[in-house]
């Protein structure tokens, strides 16, 4: 008897549960705003992008706790483009056409963004791109919440030049589009500042390069010629670990030849023994160690969400935080999630960033951010040693490159152009 009763009770609960679940689904299908998350969860980029997916899920959950948006709940649609660039385009199309998302947050590498670009433009949707990149792009449909070169690379070089008195430069990077473009801009910038060609050494290495002996030894020799030398590193991903290890074992201390990196953050350092790296630098718009109330509560929320109080936060996470909040504000302002309306209403929207200030969406679809230089500490965190007094507006088209210095981007009417040449007064009309 007893077992029978309990059995029926179980069945009862189960069916009730099933009913409520199906009702939930029904409600979800009708009355939610869908947000697409397009980050690789497998393959080589999973190491960086998985964290961003979790960040987005956390932000959406928090927004729902606050009552959602326009009286509706938000619903995350997660897809896995698997570090496969063409798949990014397919998945983006799937998100917009099949799942009907109102905005996409995603991509990490420049090539994956370029792959999504034609899709979001064709379907006239919205994407938020959270990673620092090489610039030279401004799409009507993409909002760049990571740093443009003038928000990271150029200020870092200024700091080295003015505060540390660096006169010789090693520009070391991985051989692909972001380092090549950034180094082209930096080379032009340094030459404009009067640095001689023989005081600049440029070096490219393949992806995942692991034998750094000769390069570090060359850097050492380059730096031993009397002038203060620094390395500006656009070395990407995994290759940084053996690079820093080799620096440590060849005794290149930060005091002698500092290395400033644009792709090394808290997440990357969590896989290295940082003792030999103390004092080397990184330039970002956010560090986990920044002392501000919004940052503290963000980190607390992140630890609670991941149930792991050792998880670090990093710059692209902050970019998503800013981007998501901007989108929420823009939707509220427009009163609709319609892509066209949001594209208009988001320009000029200002939301708090995690470093204690506000970031604003500019007409060129880039945002204002403070620039910070941090030194690596032995606990894998950065100590901010320098920062800009205010925020810096992202510049889509570099002022230091031939062919791009006359171009501006302004998506407000009447110009509505991502690449307007002020000399010829023409919008080239190219789609990026």
């Amino acid at each position: 008897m007893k077992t029978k009763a309990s059995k029926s009770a179980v069945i009862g609960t189960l069916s009730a549960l099933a009913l409520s679940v199906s009702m939930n689904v029904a409600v979800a299908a009708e009355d939610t705003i869908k947000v697409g998350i397009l980050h690789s969860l497998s393959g080589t980029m999973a190491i960086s992008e998985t964290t961003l997916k979790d960040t987005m899920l956390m932000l959406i959950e928090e927004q729902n706790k606050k009552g959602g948006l326009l009286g509706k709940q938000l619903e995350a649609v997660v897809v896995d483009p698997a570090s496969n660039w063409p798949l990014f385009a397919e998945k983006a199309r799937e998100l917009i056409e099949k799942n009907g998302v109102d905005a996409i947050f995603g991509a990490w590498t420049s090539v994956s963004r370029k792959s999504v670009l034609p899709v979001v433009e064709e379907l006239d949707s919205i994407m938020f791109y959270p990673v620092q990149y090489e610039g030279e792009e401004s799409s009507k449909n993409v909002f760049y919440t990571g740093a443009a070169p003038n928000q990271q690379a150029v200020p870092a070089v200024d700091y080295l030049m003015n505060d540390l008195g660096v006169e010789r430069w090693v520009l070391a990077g991985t051989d692909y589009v972001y380092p090549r473009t950034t180094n082209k801009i930096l080379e032009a910038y340094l030459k404009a500042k009067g640095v001689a060609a023989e005081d600049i050494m440029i070096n490219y290495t393949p992806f995942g390069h692991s034998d750094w002996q000769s390069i570090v030894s060359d850097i050492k020799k380059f730096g031993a010629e009397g002038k203060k030398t620094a390395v500006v590193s656009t070395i990407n991903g995994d290759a940084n670990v053996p690079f820093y290890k080799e620096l440590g074992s060849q005794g290149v201390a930060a005091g002698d030849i500092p290395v400033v990196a644009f792709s090394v953050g808290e997440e990357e350092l969590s896989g290295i023994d940082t003792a030999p790296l103390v004092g080397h630098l990184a330039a970002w718009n956010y560090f986990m160690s920044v002392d501000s109330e919004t940052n503290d509560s963000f980190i607390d929320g992140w630890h609670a969400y991941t149930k792991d109080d050792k998880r670090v936060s990093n710059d692209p996470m902050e970019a998503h935080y800013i981007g998501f909040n901007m989108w929420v504000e823009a939707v509220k302002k427009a009163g609709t999630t319609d892509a066209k309306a949001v594209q208009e209403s988001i320009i000029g929207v200002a939301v708090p960033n995690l470093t204690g200030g506000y970031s604003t969406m500019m007409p060129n679809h880039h945002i204002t951010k403070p620039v910070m230089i941090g030194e690596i500490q032995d606990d894998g965190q950065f100590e901010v040693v320098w920062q800009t007094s205010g925020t810096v507006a992202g510049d889509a088209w570099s002022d230091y490159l031939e062919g791009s210095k006359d171009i501006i981007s302004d998506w407000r009417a009447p110009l509505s152009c991502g690449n307007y040449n002020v000399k010829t007064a023409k919008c080239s009309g190219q789609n990026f």
Partner: protein
Amino acid sequence: MPMSRPVVRLLPFFALWMLVTLLLSLSLDARSAEQDPTLAHVSTLLVKKFDDKAKAVALLVETNHPRTEEILRLIQDGELYYRKNDNRLFNIPVAETGAQAVDLLDASAITIEKTREFKKVTLNNLMRGQIGLALAEIGLKSEDPAQREAAVRKLLGELSDESVAVLRKRIGAEPVSAVRDLIQVALAVNDLRNGDEVARLQAIERVEGSLESPVRTALTQVAESDVSPVVKQKAQLALNGIDEQIRLYGMVETLYFGISLGSVLVLAGIGLAITFGVMGVINMAHGELIMLGAYTTYVVQQLMPNHLGASILVAIPAAFMVSALVGVAIERGVIRFLYGRPLETLLATFGISLILQQAVRSVFSPLNRSVSTPEWMSGMVEINPVLSLTLSRLYIILFCLLVFVALVMVLKRTPLGLQVRAVSQNRAMARAMGVRSKWVDAMTFGLGSGVAGVAGVALSQLTNVGPNLGQAYIIDSFMVVVFGGVGNLWGTLVAGLSLGIANKVLEPWAGAVLAKILVLVFIILFIQKRPRGLFPQRGRAAEG
């Protein structure tokens, strides 16, 4: 009751006594700070911004405070903290709950209750330089000759007038000749900058052949812009001599780099030389067996966190066992059904490699794991100022040779080795002689896999320990084995080392990307000409 009366009556006195001692101790505190206004001032500056901290350091040095060296060393080693609520400075060697914190001013010790209450006095690069120079100036007077030498070397190009005076006094009394020579060079560099013509000429003679980089810098300046043509010419001559030497040592360095890269290639490839070379199995999961070895190192380090130095030595047999067992399992489970079908073997082992990668991702997370380098492996051997050999690489070269010799011994001198060679040369005949060929297959594959695991231990010291570690080395491994000649351990050794050296010789003028491409193109052309590699196995049986 009667007992408590007097106690109660005594209470006010007791309280008074407490108060007096408290006040006394407070005033003592105050007095110790008063006694030393510099230190008090310094300690207020040290908790502020970097500019103020730099001022504090400068103040200590200027006033020649007796505790300068101690405090600077504490800051340099990151052992100086301040308490957040009252900004008092503490010396904290280990920052954890329950550890001791010693007050810097009055040397009283307290126990740390919450590490969050204390914050480290952080440094930036400018301050690190400033403290380094200040400590070097102090180190000139040190008792320890090694410290004096380090101090002179540090100050070589940047002697202040005071240090010049100290060195001039020091030089006569200096008992150690190496330090004396270095002081001579340091004073000569100073003369090159500031001395008159005679002093400059003498200085040039004295620094001739010295490879210290400040010497070269100073000589270059003199050779370019000295007022006297004689001095100019002499400086140029001295400079040419130095450059000649630097070039020579540069070649030695390139050779060393080449051998060390080569030894990594040999380590990665030598396991494959057995599985692919001897058994003829195209094992695409070879890289993942290396990866397993690296992860084993990580796990061993996690298990014995207090014995980092020994953990590497424990990891070597552990990694061998783990990879060998996985290897045997792969052989028994998959490969033995596919002998003689190379294409299917290739696909099956590629699948296994993906499975192993994803397994590691699931178990250890996709993030890289950090394997720390033990004390005895870090650092370098400095042969002279322009040539120093990194210790970790040196150990890996030795380790590679050791593994190679051990493998050759196993194949040449043990019954297993005999049977392996017998089976690989002529399976049918070997079986006819009573060799259990299946057992030998499994053991051979296990041996090759185990060696791959051992290579993983070495690689964990050089590169990322992550799920993609294996992929990075699989191509190199095949390249080495094919180039060396399939089935020949010596071929693998020679091929690995020569490819390493070729790569490093090409790298300076072709760049890392092009150097790699050139080496690959060379191998393709070479294989066209000699399809069986450098040292082909001869004989009828080898054809099978």
